[in-house]
């Protein structure tokens, strides 16, 4: 492929023009990721609590469960306020999900790390040689 200067500029996906609204979209994704993690945390703690009998372990897990639920409420409220999350408007939520799915597919197509940056076999020894890491 011949690299045309104009083309390479036009094709440049790190061009700020292509990053319009990117911080907001990234924040939305981070918030969603956080929501999923907090939600899983609440469920994990609740499950652990139902499997526990020792009073001190139960007390600790119950406190942590309450803290996790409070955190979940906080992130949900923020996402609803920011209009990143529409629990009452299914149509809106669907369109938003569709949009982020499309964006994610587009990001997946990008060649984000064009050059081979591996440094393997450039050194004559490895830092984990003493535990046999070079034989792995």
């Amino acid at each position, binding site marked *: 492929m011949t690299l045309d200067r104009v083309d390479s500029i036009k094709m440049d996906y790190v061009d700020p023009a292509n990053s319009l609204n990117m911080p907001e979209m*990234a924040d939305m994704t981070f918030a969603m990721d956080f929501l999923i993690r907090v939600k899983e*945390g609440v469920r994990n703690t609740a499950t652990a609590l139902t499997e526990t009998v020792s009073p001190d372990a139960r007390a600790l897990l119950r406190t942590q469960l309450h803290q996790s639920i409070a955190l979940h409420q906080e992130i949900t409220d923020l996402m609803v306020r920011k209009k990143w999350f529409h629990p009452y408007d299914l149509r809106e939520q669907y369109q938003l999900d569709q949009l982020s799915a499309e964006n994610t597919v587009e990001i997946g197509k990008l060649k984000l790390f064009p050059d081979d940056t591996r440094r393997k076999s450039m050194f004559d020894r490895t830092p984990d040689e003493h535990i046999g890491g070079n034989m792995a």
Partner: protein
Amino acid sequence: MVYAMHETLEVHEMAAFKTVCITKSKTMHALVSDPALKAILQQDVEISTRQLQELGAILAKATQ
């Protein structure tokens, strides 16, 4: 043994999950631009660190 085996395993699992969560929240904190979201992530790191220490205390007692 202060705790039953399955309790220890359950707490161990919680600790492993919390570790991943702290790492992730801490990393994401640097990438987020919204101040409110940043504040919540920071809060999560602090709370989860404390919770992990509490779980660690139980695990230390259990493995004594």
